[in-house]
């Protein structure tokens, strides 16, 4: 199996019905994980495109939607994960973990936990791991000591955000930021995301030792335009890159 792709969708965007169509079209031969974003009032570390999906999705979202997405994906052999900002997670409390486990979700990713809520990180990770995988979210600014400590507390794959925000274009040294995380975590599954803009970049990231690539902002225009055909074509192209 050579599945390298991770898709990110904001739950219930553009509508629940439309997203169901996209999720039903996810190809289990290409896609290994799907991250579903819990719509947030303040998606601090997302760029303008994903921020807009959050504000739109808040109008449509119902927690039961997640169970529907989870059920479709698990039947395809694609593992679903929830991405939730800390305040949204804390508001729902730990009962959300049971609900997610019941809905077939494999794990939880909290992108701002280590950044803005480091004081509670250890206890949150421990309680998540009683029910689900906890996916550490690191980026090039994560200190070595934090990478080691949090990796040691968890067993899952690692999400490595290449830049400070999703879907934006800034220059940084991809080879340098890739080699640092690979040196720190030589035998861990590390998937790269944040600001991946085209298939050439996906190829480059794969050549630099990433175990997978998370794609979010690139598929938003397809979702917004209800363009399932474009999505299928893009997914096919991604499959070819990943296999190559």
């Amino acid at each position, binding site marked *: 199996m050579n599945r390298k792709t991770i898709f990110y969708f904001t739950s219930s965007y553009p509508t629940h019905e439309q997203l169901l169509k996209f999720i039903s079209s996810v190809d289990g031969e290409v896609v290994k994980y799907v991250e579903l974003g819990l719509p947030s009032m303040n998606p*601090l*570390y997302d*760029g*303008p495109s994903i*921020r*807009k999906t959050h*504000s739109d999705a808040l109008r449509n979202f119902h927690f039961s939607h997640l169970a529907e997405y989870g059920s479709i994906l698990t039947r395809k052999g694609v593992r679903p994960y929830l991405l939730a900002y800390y305040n949204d997670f804390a508001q729902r409390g730990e009962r959300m973990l049971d609900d997610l486990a019941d809905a077939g979700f494999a794990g939880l990713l909290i992108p701002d936990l*280590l*950044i*803005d809520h*480091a004081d509670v990180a250890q206890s949150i990770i421990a309680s998540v791991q009683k029910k689900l995988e906890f996916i550490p979210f690191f*980026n*090039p*600014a*994560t*200190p*070595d*000591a*934090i990478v080691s400590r949090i990796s040691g507390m968890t067993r899952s794959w690692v999400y490595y955000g290449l*830049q*400070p*925000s999703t879907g*934006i*274009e*800034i*220059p*940084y*040294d991809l080879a*340098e*930021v890739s080699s*640092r995380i690979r040196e720190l975590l030589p035998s861990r599954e590390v998937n790269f995301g944040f600001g991946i803009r085209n298939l050439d970049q996906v190829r480059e990231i794969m050549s630099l030792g990433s175990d997978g690539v998370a794609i979010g902002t690139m598929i938003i225009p397809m979702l917004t335009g209800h363009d399932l055909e474009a999505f299928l074509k893009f997914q096919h192209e991604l499959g070819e890159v990943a296999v190559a």
Partner: protein
Amino acid sequence: MFIYDTLMPINMLSSQEKELIPENWYNVVPDLPEQLPPPIDNEAERSSIELLNRILPKEVLRQEFTFQRYMKIPDDIREIYEQIGRPTPLVRARGLEQFLDYSGKIYFKYEGATVTGSHKINTAIPQAIYAAKEGVQKVVTETGAGQWGTATSVAASFAGIKAKIFMVRISYQQKPLRKKIMELYGGTVSPSPSDETRFGRNLLKDNPDHPGSLGIGIGEAVEYALDHDLRYLVGSVFNSVLTHQSIIGLETEKQLEIAGEEPDVLIGCVGGGSNFGGFSFPLIKKFKEVEVIASTAAEVPKFSHGEYKYDYVDTARILPSVKMYSLGADFVPEKIYAGGLRYHGAAPSLSMLVKTGRVATRDEDENHVIQALKIFSKTQGIVAAPESGHALASAIDYVRKHKHEKKTVVVNVSGHGLLDLSIFRDDK
């Protein structure tokens, strides 16, 4: 009366020893105790972070977001560092030790020995060179006391490009010689707030005598850069700037090694945090137990009265917000003598080290600072910059309180004050 003891062994570790100039800059971010909060956008619909592509030289932006622990200093920049007086001396402050009757040792790293008389040139040079290599014809920035504008003007001249400087209005009025020097180096200087930007015009409409602030100056410079497709040079706060300034601490580390010393205490002053971070971060990495003190102006008490929060870097709210200790982007400080310290925030990395308790802070008031400057000039012959006077005031205070302990105190003197003599007016 203080009498200088002339029977001194080696006291000045300098200088003309080019191997003391490090080959790499040091970036503290991978070694911070906690994850550095990233910059965030100010508005929902557009990305202030992405806007940086049109504001900063591309290489500066690359350095800002790559977070490489050690970054090679390009050969051409290293050569210019030699030309502008690097390595700067690390001096055993024998005169000050005697005056204070101190049982330990005091060293000071003297950034006033660079051609522009402050540490600011350490980052102005790489930024201007990067801008010129990208084909930019003119760079723009703000200046408070004038040191940063002076450094930018020289660096632009070295790089063969022009410089436009927005100088905080109160400093512009009080320091005509600073303006003259910037012009001598080829810079064009405007008082800020100015009528050359929308932001400046709005402020002047409300208050024609607005004294300005660094936050306002940054806002005007960034707006001007965007409107004229120029590049903005960053004087402080940004991580890439602190990385360039690490040359101060890395040289100090080698000089202390030659002297056979290990520091017990590091003291520096903080405006935005660049001289302090550049000086102390490499030494904090090397000497795990070293005590570290950041000295700020009591009139701009960002650490003692500010809040650790996401806040705007510039008063015009154009640059991305960063998490830092801040008095608020609209804070207009008193018209104090140390223009370089009139900034509402402090670099995110330094702010985190203060928040976690690794770096202690002190607020120093004007009288205390002026007394410290007088003592330092009489005992060491150096008229330090008013900003650096805060570090000296904290150092003198520290030594007096620990008089009988044989500690090694190292102070960063970020610049000279030969163009700031007006602060000694009224025989203060």
